């Protein structure tokens, strides 16, 4: 019963936040002269009405799951990884680089190799802040943010100097490294759905297993909660801080490979961040830093973003409104104190 209650309240806050966020969105629409019922119907249809939009939704949230996992993993071990965006970019580039090599390799080797390269690149980008934190107590928020900018410019410079193809981008990767699938495209009315979602689900399972079922996860969590007690227990605190950033960075790198090997098959010179890494923070927050929660939250965000397109064309509501709704949901989750208060009130009245 106790477990049930905990689980319930664990789900309660995100759920209430989503409802409140949508309600607030409706109110904003009313005030701006739109029809919220029409808009939300369009939104819903925009996610579920046909296989094409469903395919696009899944494609949209695949990298979000992984970037959410990256943030959640670090958070579980007491670190704020704001550098997912940068780790994702280097991962993207690494996957594309490997995808451009090894012509003729079987996909069964080429794809894992490219994904591993992405993970390694992201991990490498995580080592730096992890090391600085463990060794010199430099706060990881500052270093990871700086690493984001370094990633953006380094990646652009590498593409420009070594991999440039017409159109400010790299060449397209070999077919053998591509996650794209004619079969998936055909069953979803030619959406860009690719096999990456399987990778993301596997990622979620790995994170759950690693954190809760292994001695490594035990150590990482212990360090996250209480470094003094960890030291007392003989756990190497510095090593675990670095390791945590490495694993988190690896998840982020793999998120990048979803774009590199799946959606695009190449990498463009970027004028700005993709935002996927930053959205990962929101996804992780809404998903209460749990693997299953991150998957659900990413699905919700991906759905809202794809559905917003239909909302715009049917109800003329600008897609920015969904950005506002997402921001509000995050706001409500973050101020969960408010919601707890709210639900306490309700409980009391219900109980008399």
């Amino acid at each position: 019963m106790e477990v049930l209650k905990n689980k319930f309240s664990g789900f309660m806050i995100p759920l209430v936040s989503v409802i409140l966020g949508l309600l607030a969105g409706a109110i904003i629409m009313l005030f701006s002269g739109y029809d919220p019922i029409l808009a939300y119907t369009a939104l819903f249809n925009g996610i579920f009405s046909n296989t094409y939009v469903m395919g696009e939704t899944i494609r949209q949230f695949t990298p979000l799951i992984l970037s959410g996992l990256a943030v959640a993993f670090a958070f579980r071990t007491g670190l704020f990884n704001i550098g997912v965006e940068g780790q994702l970019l280097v991962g993207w580039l690494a996957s594309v680089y490997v995808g451009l090599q090894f012509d003729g390799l079987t996909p069964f080797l080429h794809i894992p190799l490219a994904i591993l390269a992405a993970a390694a690149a992201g991990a490498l980008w995580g080592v730096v802040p992890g090391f600085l934190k463990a060794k010199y107590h430099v706060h990881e928020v500052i270093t990871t943010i700086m690493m984001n900018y370094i990633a953006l410019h380094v990646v652009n410079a590498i593409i420009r100097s070594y991999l440039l193809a017409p159109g400010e981008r790299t060449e397209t990767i070999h077919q053998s490294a591509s996650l794209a699938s004619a079969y998936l495209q055909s069953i979803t009315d030619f959406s860009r759905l690719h096999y990456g979602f399987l990778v993301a689900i596997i990622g979620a399972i790995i994170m759950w297993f690693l954190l809760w079922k292994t001695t490594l996860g035990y150590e990482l969590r212990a360090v996250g909660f209480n470094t003094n007690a960890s030291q007392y227990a003989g756990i190497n605190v510095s090593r675990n801080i670095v390791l945590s950033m490495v694993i988190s960075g690896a998840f982020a790198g793999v998120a990048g490979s979803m774009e590199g090997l799946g959606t695009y098959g190449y990498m463009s010179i970027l004028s700005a961040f993709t935002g996927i890494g930053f959205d990962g923070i929101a996804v992780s927050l809404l998903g209460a830093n749990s693997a299953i929660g991150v998957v659900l939250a990413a699905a919700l965000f991906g759905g809202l973003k794809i559905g917003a397109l239909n909302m715009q064309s049917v109800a003329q509501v600008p897609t920015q409104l969904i950005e506002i709704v997402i921001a509000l949901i995050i706001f409500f989750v973050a101020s969960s104190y408010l919601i707890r208060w709210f639900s306490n009130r309700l409980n009391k009245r219900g109980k008399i």
Partner: protein
Amino acid sequence: MEYVIEMRNIRKEFPGIVANDNVTLQVQQGEIHALLGENGAGKSTLMNVLFGLYQPEQGEIYVKGKKVNITDPNVANDLGIGMVHQHFMLVEKFTVTENIILGNEPRDKGRVNLKKAAKEVEAISKQYGLKVDPYAKIEDISVGMQQRVEILKTLYRGAEILIFDEPTAVLTPQEIHELIQIMKRLIEEGKSIILITHKLKEIMEVCDRCTVIRRGKGIGTVDISETNPDELASMMVGREVNFSVEKGPAHPKEEVLQIENLVVEDARGVPQVNDLSLSLKGGEIVGIAGVDGNGQTELIEAITGLRKAKSGMIKLSGKDITNHKPRKITESGLGHIPQDRHKHGLVLDFSVGENMVLQTYYQKPYSNKGVLKLPKIMEKAKSLIKEYDVRTPSEMTPARALSGGNQQKAIIAREVDRSPNLLIAAQPTRGLDVGAIEFIHSKLVEERDKGKAVLMISFELDEILNVSDRIAVIYEGKIVDIVKPEETNEQELGLLMAGGKREKVGDQ
């Protein structure tokens, strides 16, 4: 008769447990009212209800005869109820004055007037004899002074009724004596006090009446003048309690711990352990007696590997372990009940079960090739919970939700169960009820009789005298004397601890 505080038929539930079940507490104006009960009986919970931190499921609260609804601590403040929590709630980087006025700042044209505040703080501290330095930072002052700051905080907010939750558990005997004087002074000034403590001596000394709760249920209220410690103890535990430790003579064997010329510095580079030598044999309990701050903490941390020794040598079972990593030392046969259970002893957000394997999670049978064997861990936890009577709804409950005393019992269970060659027990019974203390002491003796060495550090001279086979007195980072408990007494120990000498100095 009108009571300043009357809590009637309070019921408070937590997931899986009823912490307060129909408890009634009546406090008279101007009395010190003791609240007594075993670990986990529900004392802190009841006081948190009174202070507005928890909402009861049932029951009524009356303050000076008026029914009140205490929805949060601000309401409690307005009603004149103040609480000194066991774990202080102070801002380390703030000064004493800033901490006291926090949330109630005196304003001058919108700006906080710190000078005026400091004056006010000084005035109150004079009035009640609570010596503090208004300008000192919290992180720089002693635990005893921090507690006085907590008391001043409640007085500054105009508290008439003060709740003290185990205030003496963290204090040294001297500080306890001062606190008792302060409480008497508060009563003279017309306040009323509710005091939670496990020390029956203190109850007998300062309290007027005592309410006993057992497993969440109110057992009754007695006049202190008409009772005695034995009766109180059996009221709370439900059986007779044996205060003296039953143990036969020690049979010391080969040396287990050898410390030679150890020097350990604190964070500022000041040597706290200064050329200390000590040796410990298997089959004996050595108690370290000393005033707080004479190097005890640094000594333990150096032995356990949590702090580097500057020079000297530490040998465990003949093996040099000086400045080895904590894990290596643990594996060489060390168990450690740490002084600060929240800082070192537990990961509060881990379940009780996970905490039970904090030192062994990476070994068989609790894991295999890096994969945790949760069923095995939980099985072990269950048996430890049972053997050591850790009161918890289940082994899955987060350690944070346990009462202070039960957290302590969980740590002791974990460390003693491994039956290490050397067991370091720092304040092992801090915050435990008399029944639990009896049990833990017998466990320490049991380890001794198995041939293990036990090094116990305690501020309780009773405990030192009762449990130890030899007493090593520490003063300014040195062992200044070693005495046999049957050949000394509290007075002599007190003298030695203050740097005095015995007539005939014993050999080391």
